[in-house]
């Protein structure tokens, strides 16, 4: 089978899987078998694609239904797409195993299985479709597929709380979709095409002010999805109420699809239109304001939601640098963050079951009670906080070095097109903000560690500490649930993902090289264009 034949399967398999799990609604085991095998197959296909794409040096472009490029839909897999697909497939698989474990233990009270599996697979199809879309409208369709499925997953069970949280999320997503669709309409009006490769050429011919308007409209739409400050307000209110596996997969993947779209916008679509200064400021603000929000949260799920917003800022900073090293570090950081953030949310789910609460004010003595749980929390927490030698540290150092090179004017790695135009002092300021954010993340997570794991169970009554003087409970008072069993399937899924985060550290060298090669292709939009139009664009 040629690699071109494999590309559509990435979307097709999950969709077929969703249909069959819907039919198999009453056969729980069959559903599980279908979902796991579909996601395993996609992960295997993604691995083959990654090897093939990396070997060919550019990528694979498929014209669906053999309609030629500007008229038909093109699916494009380059190194970035392949990396994103494989890490997403692994995450989705890990979370699925966890969800199955939870469902079995709770007899499906939180995750009614007949709806969960089809929605989950449709969500996967949408995510993969967004990653391989070579057409702006197809990207929109990918977003809509994953959003529709996410509406269902977020309001699973239809309890009052989830409906409230879901309404915020759904309305914000609808508005961002309307922005995106309007942007597509205007871009089509200006250029007469929605093909990304063709747009790369035609948008550059437009006057700068027209480009700027279209560019900002697209960035607004993607900024809402990626939860970039000031468009991040919706995230901490809507994610924490969902079931643990759903929150984990949303936190890990959905915002990163927005980040992926921003990378494409900046590198292929509007390479000639410079908004790097704006992105740099937004990146810095996202980091700082997100993490300051995290500091005051007593509830670990809300705390993690705020760190999620905050760490999106690092990726925006890397994109704003628009140097090869900056983009390479961004790609590595995206992969690291998908894994670590997902894992932390899964561990939180275990803590909630084991400790019976998610609030820092109610948890204590977990280290003595379950050393394994402590390890599962400790490793990703240090990783997110950027402690060497973990991948979080490596990603941040990569970003800071890239920033220093851009600020010092030594970015000589074959830059094509205008690099970052941000003033030098601003780059240094954002690097400082990044370092501060890293430390504050570490503070927030170690505070939780101290209280929940190190504090003795007997100290909980009337405990007073300066650390807890400024934290606030979740608006709904923090749901107290009774302690429940933690089935081995959930624990082993989480352990598997923790091992994956460690592997990202161990194999950081080859991964960073791969990200570097992906970034070199991104830095030169002509590579993408010649992939879709080998004979040149009309």
């Amino acid at each position, binding site marked *: 089978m040629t690699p071109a034949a494999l590309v559509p399967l990435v979307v097709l398999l999950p969709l077929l899987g969703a249909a069959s799990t819907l039919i198999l609604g009453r056969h729980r085991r069959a559903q599980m078998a279908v979902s796991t095998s579909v996601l395993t197959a996609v992960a295997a296909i993604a691995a083959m694609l990654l090897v093939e794409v990396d070997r060919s040096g550019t990528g694979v472009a498929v014209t669906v239904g053999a309609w030629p490029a500007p008229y038909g839909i093109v699916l494009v897999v380059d190194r970035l797409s392949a990396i994103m697909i494989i890490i997403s497939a692994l995450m989705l698989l890990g979370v699925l195993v966890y969800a199955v474990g939870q469902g079995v233990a709770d007899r499906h009270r939180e995750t009614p299985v007949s709806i969960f599996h089809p929605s989950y697979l449709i969500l996967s199809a949408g995510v993969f479709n967004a990653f391989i879309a070579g057409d702006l409208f197809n990207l929109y369709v990918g977003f809509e597929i994953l959003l*529709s499925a996410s*509406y269902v997953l977020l309001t699973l069970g239809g309890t009052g709380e989830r409906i409230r949280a879901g309404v915020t999320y759904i309305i914000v997503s609808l508005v961002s979709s*309307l922005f995106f669709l309007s942007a597509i309409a205007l871009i*089509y009006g200006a250029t007469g095409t929605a093909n990304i490769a063709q747009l790369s050429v035609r948008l550059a011919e437009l006057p700068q002010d027209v480009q700027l308007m279209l560019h900002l409209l697209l960035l607004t739409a993607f900024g809402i999805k990626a939860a970039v400050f000031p468009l991040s307000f919706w995230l901490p209110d809507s994610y924490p109420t969902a079931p643990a596996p759903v929150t984990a997969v949303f936190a890990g993947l959905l915002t990163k699809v927005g980040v992926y779209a921003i990378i494409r916008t900046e590198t292929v679509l509007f390479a000639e239109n410079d908004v790097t200064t704006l992105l740099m400021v937004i990146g810095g603000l996202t980091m700082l304001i997100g993490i300051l929000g995290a500091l005051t949260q007593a509830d670990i799920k809300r705390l993690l939601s705020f760190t999620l917003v905050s760490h999106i800022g690092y990726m925006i900073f890397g994109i704003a640098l628009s140097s090869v090293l900056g983009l390479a570090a961004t790609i590595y950081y995206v992969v690291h963050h998908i894994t670590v953030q997902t894992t932390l949310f899964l561990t939180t789910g275990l803590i909630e079951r084991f400790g019976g609460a998610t609030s820092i004010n109610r948890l204590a003595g977990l280290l003595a009670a379950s050393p394994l749980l402590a390890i599962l929390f400790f490793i990703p927490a240090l990783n997110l906080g950027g402690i060497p030698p973990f991948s979080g540290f490596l990603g941040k150092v990569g970003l800071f070095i890239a920033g220093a090179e851009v600020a010092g004017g030594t970015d000589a790695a074959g830059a094509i097109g205008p690099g970052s135009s941000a003033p030098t002092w601003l780059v240094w300021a954002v690097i400082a903000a990044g370092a501060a954010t890293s430390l504050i993340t570490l503070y927030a997570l170690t505070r939780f560690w101290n209280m929940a794991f190190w504090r003795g169970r007997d100290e909980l009554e009337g405990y007073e500490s300066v650390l807890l003087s400024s934290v606030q409970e979740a608006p709904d008072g923090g749901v107290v649930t009774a302690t429940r069993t933690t089935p081995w399937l959930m624990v082993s899924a989480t352990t598997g993902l923790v091992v994956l985060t460690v592997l990202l550290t161990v194999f950081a060298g080859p991964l960073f090289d791969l990200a570097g090669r992906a970034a070199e292709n991104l830095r030169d939009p002509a590579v993408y264009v010649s992939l879709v139009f080998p004979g040149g664009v009309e």
Partner: protein
Amino acid sequence: MTASLTLVLLMAVLFGSGVAVMLERSLTRVLIGFLLVGNGVNLLIYLMSGTPGLAPILGEGVDESAISDPLPQAFILTAIVINLGITAFMLALIYRSWWLAQLGAKGDLVDDEAELVEDAEEAADLIRSSAADDRAVQEIIDASDEEYSEGRRS
């Protein structure tokens, strides 16, 4: 490229009124606002297709320069289908949130395992009473239908 002024004005009205309605607190109005803006965006896509022409069907003797641009029409069709799906989901969500508002915190117990039997009973009563209401309304309708048909016969 020429555009119809009427359509531009209509689009502006749809956008304006849609955003105004969307800012209301009631969920149903938000949905209506979304539908208005969504249709405004569809009109925007249509306007971007340039000068309208013949139906875009190629055949013998059809001048390619005289037909409309078919691609925006395909975009609009896709967007309409997506909006329809979202609307259906939103309606279900609105119904559920209305249901929860009627019952308060007890609403959650209707479908889940009933931990508090009394609350579940109360919820079940409410369902039965609304079913009784439906029947009563239906009887009135049926009665008026009968009166109407009798009136015609006599």
